[in-house]
């Protein structure tokens, strides 16, 4: 039972879109079951941010044989495609909206929530704008400096701030390294609230609701 079917993720500032996407992909990869991952995005966002690159995605922990990418011409179509994809039982659907256009209204996000609840799938709504939303959580993502010796790049790392949490307190910040090999986050430093720490996903507020 996916208790929290809809989460929102955005960059903490302009220029951090790649990190917000990385965080979404990491979550999707850690949750993905046999139904796999659908990634619905606007054409504009794909050309702006670069096109998804399968070689890198595979290294990131995304199973290529379970990935379907939808390049929609318009925002409405990307949204519609995400709604359709949520009908796949236990699928993870990334709905990536570009910076142009208004943030999703409450009604549209409620629809996503409804579709996800209906078939126990989960939706990660990726959008820079932060408006009213039916999502359980909203995460604001920035890149974190590599956790590696000088002059080496470590695994993908993020600073994730929980800016909205319908299930409890918000405002916690986590510095996370993505362990693509085991498909889980490891927490590096702790700033703020300990109780909602994402260590190994065990105290993951997102997962905690997933009974």
């Amino acid at each position, binding site marked *: 039972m996916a208790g929290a079917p809809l989460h929102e993720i955005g960059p903490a500032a302009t*220029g*951090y879109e*790649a*990190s917000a*996407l*990385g*965080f979404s*992909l990491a979550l999707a990869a850690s949750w993905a079951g*046999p*139904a*796999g991952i*659908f990634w619905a995005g606007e054409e504009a966002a794909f050309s702006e*941010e*670069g*096109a*998804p*690159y*399968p*070689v*890198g*995605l*595979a*290294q*990131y*922990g995304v199973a*290529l*044989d379970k*990935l*379907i*990418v*939808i390049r*929609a*011409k318009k925002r409405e*179509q990307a949204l*519609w*495609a995400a709604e*359709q*994809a949520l*009908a*796949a*039982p236990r*699928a993870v659907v990334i709905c990536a909206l570009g910076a142009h256009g208004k943030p999703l209204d409450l009604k549209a996000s409620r629809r996503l929530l409804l579709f996800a609840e209906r078939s126990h799938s989960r939706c990660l709504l990726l959008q820079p704008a932060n408006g009213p939303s039916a999502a359980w959580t909203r995460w604001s993502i*920035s*890149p*974190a*400096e*590599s956790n*590696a010796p000088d*002059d*080496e*790049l*470590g*695994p*993908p*790392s993020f600073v994730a701030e929980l800016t909205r949490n319908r299930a409890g307190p918000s405002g916690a910040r986590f510095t996370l*390294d993505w*362990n*693509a*090999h085991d*498909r889980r986050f490891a927490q590096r430093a702790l700033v703020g609230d300990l109780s909602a720490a994402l260590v190994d996903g065990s105290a993951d507020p997102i997962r905690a609701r997933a009974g």
Partner: protein
Amino acid sequence: MTAGSHNARWLAIYLPRLSTDRLIRSGRAPADDRPLATYTKEAGAFQLTGVDARASALGLRLAMSLADARAIQPKLEAVEAEPEEDARALDNIAAWCERFTPIVVLDPPEGLFLDITGCPHLFGGEEALRKLIVTHLNAQGFTVRAAVAGTPGAAWAFARYARKQTLSLAERVAAKQRGEGRSNKQAPGRLNAPHPPPPAPRGGGGEDLRATLSPLPIEALRLEPDAAAFIRRFGLKTIGQLTEIPRSSFTARGGEHAMLHLDQALGRVPEVLTPRRPPPMVFALRRFLEPIFTADAVLEVAQVLCEDAAPKLELRGVGMLAAELVLFGVDGRDRILPINVSRPLRDVKALMRLFREKLNVVGENLNAEFGFEAARLDAVRTAPIEERARALVSLEEAAAGAEKISEIVDILSSRLGGKRVLRPQLHEEHAPERAAGWRSALGKEKKKAPEKKPPADSVMRRPVRLYAPAQAIEVMAGVPDGPPIRFRWRRVTREVVRSEGPERIAGDWQKREMTRDYYRVEDKQGRRYWLYREGLYGESEEKPRWYVHGLFA
């Protein structure tokens, strides 16, 4: 296409004045009442190839020389023949005929064959169908004769040489036995009723044909001119006479040719004809009493056609991979709604979902100006549906999940187009931009790519997003062949704090590509980029150029 089955019904169309009718239709006829003819240059002389009704009435005949014709009829309007245009007109008529059956055979220069086996009841019987076609083509300005028979050869003969093109008495009796000829008000929800039971074997399997063909001249057997002349030299004028002489007397080529055509006309030997378009394995057809205009009405029709096609598909153990809903406009123009799916499908509900999506897209652009008068559903491509053994519940569930995903893929592709719903693909290529690609999620993967595992240290060597083409940047490098210290991209200067590299990737010399040195770098904010320097330092006079090729997430 073999036309020789016992219950086959063929309708032959003959357009004796196609070339002049075409000219008159296109407004190129003489304005006053002058006769019209077409001519061509044959063996150095101008010969008539087509005459309109007026010219015929004045005694002008085909193959007459233009000079003679002018002598008889000084007012004659003569136009040079345009065989390509005539062929196009014939093909247009053939296309229009596909609303009656998907099997239409071109019989140039002025004929068509329609395989109407199992179709007539949709149109109120054979005679009604024949009349419908003749009336419509007449209204379009074509002189036309048409006839129906059990073989293409016989239909051809009746269309051209029989006094009446209605069914002969013998044929009508046979038709009655088959339960045709009753005007058949279409029961809703039923499209093609199952074939009527075949008639009791008739004596000699075509006696009636023999009787009806007998009085016709031997030319009615579609003989080449020299073959006809050869037969006539024996004093034989009618098909009846030809059937009565011993075959052994005909061993010469002309005779054999005539005998083959005779056997084909009588249905003793099957005739192989090639339809204008390959006929679908399964199709369903429906004609409406009233033209339909709206998307909703089209959906209703699609539903009926799907319901009709489903059992036919089931019978063959197949489903549709590609289907076309052809809508025949009253104005003679067709609209085609294609759907493609990732796995064979025959479930009416699933098919209807796809058509609904399709119509959502087409919706307003259906252009049903004068309405549609008929519709056909073709199974363009089919594949066997494997009946799954119901063994394990978990397997069941997994299969149901896969089923659901493929259904979603179908719906998405149907609405957005197959090129927008994609699955990743890896290729064995050195150049990063060629090492991966995307394919339509509808298709089957050609070969299973080996599953790539994430690296044990979880450090990314390749970006999750790739720019195509790579984006040019300005770089300050510490040493000429070293990593960049800072670079400017999208009008923002970025300070490099960590870098790894170079990873050298050789270019394809055949494509004149330069060697690239790739660096993975991290800026002050922790953002990570995949940069490369094109060309080796000192390799050429020019300063090497730098690019951002991708972003690490």
